[in-house]
């Protein structure tokens, strides 16, 4: 669905994006992770055809982004992090207006509103919506024309846990419907849960690209941490795979002196820090 080869772009003489290559397969959720100023926004702008002065190749569908026509956007839906609605119009009017800009198939506005729990607020002015309600409305606005490719920017930002869950379930449902989704988020838990593959981008360069599971497993084994009482509480840890060889642990088990024991895997954030030397949160 997306093919990027040796992409280079600069706002000044110094390259901002340098030799970036990656592919997003049809039907996958691809996560773009990186700190502010990493170049994610620029790559997204290039993929949305808004920055044509790049070198290399960026193909979305079968269209080179710098050469796109206006029909390019018939199959693209974008959920910006911020609200992009007419505040004086109702939720339903906004969805009707934006869907009227597309020639292709339209999804049922009532069903979309119901899917995000806004069916009872459909005729309320957007100005009276909470931030979370606006986020949900923004999300379904990207779906009204049933695009094949979705760009989601921090889709769970500002949502309470219930609505965050609802949003993530909807994203997974869209994947099941066959959509390709490019997700940009700082939320590592969301990325781990939703993404088939993630790309770490820092300073305009790609540092890693793999599934969250592979990244976690390849860079750090699960650890076991245990505690016991000996002149106060003591703790130690070892790799899960080396538990049997840990003499201290074996002795504590034999003497029934363990206070606690638990295992933990490194998080995607740990892996991001290890690979890039930067933090996302």
């Amino acid at each position, binding site marked *: 669905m997306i093919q990027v080869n040796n992409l280079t772009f600069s706002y000044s003489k110094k390259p901002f994006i340098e030799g970036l290559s990656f592919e997003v397969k049809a039907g996958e959720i691809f996560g*773009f992770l990186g700190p*502010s100023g990493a170049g*994610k*926004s620029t790559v*997204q*702008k290039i993929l*949305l055809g*808004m920055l044509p002065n790049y070198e290399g190749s960026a193909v979305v569908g079968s269209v080179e982004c710098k050469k796109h026509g*206006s*029909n*390019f*956007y*018939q199959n*693209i839906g*974008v959920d*910006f*992090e*911020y*609200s*992009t*609605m*007419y*505040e*004086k*119009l109702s939720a339903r009017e906004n969805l009707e*207006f*934006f869907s*009227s*800009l*597309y*020639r292709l198939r339209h999804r049922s506005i009532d069903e979309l509103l119901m899917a995000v729990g806004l069916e009872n607020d459909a005729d309320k002015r957007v100005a009276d919506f909470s931030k979370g309600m606006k986020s949900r409305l923004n999300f379904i*606005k990207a779906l009204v024309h049933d695009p094949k490719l979705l*760009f989601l*920017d*921090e889709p769970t930002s500002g949502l309470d846990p219930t609505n965050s869950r609802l949003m993530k379930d909807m994203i997974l449902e869209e994947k099941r419907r066959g959509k390709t989704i490019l997700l*940009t988020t700082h939320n590592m838990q969301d990325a781990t849960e939703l993404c088939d593959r993630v790309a770490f981008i820092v300073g305009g360069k790609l540092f890693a690209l793999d599934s969250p599971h592979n990244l976690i497993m390849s860079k750090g084994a699960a650890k076991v941490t245990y505690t016991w009482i000996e002149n106060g509480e003591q703790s130690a840890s070892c790799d899960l795979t080396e538990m049997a060889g840990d003499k201290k642990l074996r002795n504590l088990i034999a003497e029934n002196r363990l206070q606690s024991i638990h295992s933990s895997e490194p998080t995607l954030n740990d892996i991001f820090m290890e690979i890039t030397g930067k933090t996302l949160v």
Partner: protein
Amino acid sequence: MLTIDKRFINLLRWDLRFQARYGFYLLYVLLTVFYTLVLFAIPGSWKEKTAAMLIFSDPAAMGLFFMGAIVLLEKSQKVTSYFAITPMKAREYVWSKVLSLSAISLVVATILATVAGYTAIFPLLVGTFLASAIFTLCGIIVATKISSLNQFILATVPIEIIGFVPAILHIFGVTGSIADRLYPANVCMDMIMGDRPFAAGLLLTVALIALLLQVACRSVLKMWQEQGGVKL
């Protein structure tokens, strides 16, 4: 070229709806009543020129002022960011604004002209439409480049001076050279007064509109792309 298709018709319909929702029509009902009362109150010999000045300076020129409000509102609600990634073309956006605002201009101009006893309604409508298109396009061009209402008011002052002053001097015959009748604002004023314009003047006016249209489309596209950056 303007492609009249379903999307453009939808856009135009929604622009008319937005203008109604944001109170444009109510405002112009009140203004039309006020202007009508003014026209009834003044002596008969003043009516024609007063009506022409009212039509030229308000309904015909309203696009100049209202485009600032419309674009600033769309910018503040970040709707322009979204336009950048829809199939809507800049020229559809521009034409929709020109036609929807000129619809108000034409209705108000017709009412005022009727009250003032005009008989040459057709040239009045053409003159009002051309003036409305010029002012709306100028309004769009300026509005795409500013970020506050104060900036907009300041930036439109030169347009008001070069748009209104020659036309008002022209109506009173202060100047009278042939060149005056070629000046687009004066061409529109002539037509609003029911006069037949110079063909060369009309041609120049249409050429100016075509030029402004190109500039407006480029300015809108640039604004969408600049506004459309996704902050990640």
